[in-house]
């Protein structure tokens, strides 16, 4: 079996007495698309935030591309990672947020140039060219000099996708990326994600409420409940023939709401 791109090994996360994730074990293969679904408070967003190192973990180890992310080897043992190690391994991961989190004081183009220049050390010209190509790919070549406040939510989210891609990650995380959008703008963002999946060699983890999209796009669906993966499998298994009662309840509630 090939080395997993992302591996959670007995990962636990708690806030004080509240356990958000309880010894999570999850492996994601290179190029695999995993959709994470579940009720709010089930810990699904926390999975992505821990992987992006926005949240510290309380136990276990996360591996990315064959090496530990949250820890580093020292004298044959794993010790908690220092900032330098985190920065190196984190470079393999990109994230797109629910609320876009674009830099409001920079144009779309500058948003996509900032990190390539200052992190990858690209010359300004090259960074600008790549940023322009990526904005073109997400269908915004005519908006590259616009500021986020001049763009619609869907356009902002597409800039955010281009910005994350500019760092050439191996793993892309999508955290409810269409939840803050007006319904008519959801499609344009999902189309970009479809395109990414088809054209790029990317491992993707997405937390989503778009069940239709998860069904069509994902290779695997994980249903989270109470800080654990209650059920996982191919989309058709989860959506058409869920084994767990909780999965059935969740899906019927979501599908009823439309």
């Amino acid at each position, binding site marked *: 079996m090939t080395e997993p791109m992302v591996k959670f090994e007995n990962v636990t996360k708690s806030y004080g007495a509240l356990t958000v994730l309880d010894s999570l074990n999850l492996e994601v293969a290179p190029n695999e698309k995993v959709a994470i679904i579940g009720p709010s408070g089930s810990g699904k967003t926390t999975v992505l935030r821990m992987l992006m190192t926005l949240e510290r973990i309380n136990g276990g180890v996360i591996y990315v591309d064959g090496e530990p992310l949250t820890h580093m080897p020292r004298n044959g043992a794993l010790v908690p990672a220092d900032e330098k190690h985190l920065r190196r391994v984190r470079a393999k991961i990109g*994230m797109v947020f629910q609320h876009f989190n*674009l*830099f*409001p*004081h920079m144009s779309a183009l500058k948003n996509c140039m*900032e990190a390539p220049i200052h992190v990858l050390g690209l010359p300004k010209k090259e960074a600008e060219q790549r940023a322009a190509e990526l904005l073109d790919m997400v269908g915004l070549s005519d908006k590259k000099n616009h500021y*986020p406040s001049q763009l619609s939510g869907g356009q902002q989210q597409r800039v955010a996708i281009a*910005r994350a891609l500019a760092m050439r990650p191996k793993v892309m995380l999508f955290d409810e990326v269409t939840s803050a959008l007006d319904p008519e703008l959801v499609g344009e963002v999902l189309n970009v994600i479809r395109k990414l999946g088809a054209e790029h060699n990317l491992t993707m983890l997405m937390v989503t409420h778009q069940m239709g999209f998860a069904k069509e796009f994902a290779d695997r669906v994980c249903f989270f409940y109470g800080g654990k993966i209650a059920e996982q499998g191919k989309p058709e298994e989860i959506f058409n023939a869920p084994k767990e009662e909780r999965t059935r309840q969740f899906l019927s509630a979501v599908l009823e709401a439309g």
Partner: protein
Amino acid sequence: MLWDWNYTWEIMPVLLRASVVTVEATLLGFLLAAVLGLVLAILRMSKNNWVSIPTAGFIEFIRSTPVLIQIFFIYFVFPEFGVVLPAMTAGVLALGLHYGCYCSEVYRAGIECVPRGQWEASTALNLSPYVTFRDIIIPQAIPPIVPALGNYLVALFKETPLLSAIAVLELMQTAKILGSQSFRYVEPITLVGVFFLVMSLVAAAIIRQVEAWLNRTLRISGAER
């Protein structure tokens, strides 16, 4: 007659020259306060308690003691430790330090107002802490606090007469000397007051312009906040 116009015109050039010293002390002091304030704000927000707690204590200490005592301390007590400073330097240092501590609280408020998502996006893009502060956080933290910083600029300006206590030849000290020479205090002291009034109003107008300009050029969007 209470007001002597001849005398007024006679002392005007002397006071105008002294006003240059006042403006210099204000600008240098505020420059120091603006830089020091930012540094203190960042140190205070450090995750390392060995940095943040002493910094917080230092800021509280400076803010809770009168600036006049700090001026005296730097000018009269530092020499005991071998640090002898010219009066103007000591005065600017004390004002900059005092107002730097006030400014640091303003910066901190500005930095804390930057949405958490901006920090998270910076982490996700792997920006270093330095680049995050320089390119992402500070450009968004400053525009909303320009009015508050401007208030401190005007406040510092109005405190510069304290430097007369260590014989810096700024406006107040010059007016006192003129008064003691001619035994006429009405004109010099009044002129000093008028000067401060006019300059404060001018400064306030400039700050409003800067504020408007920052908001235009940095385009802080309402939607993102």
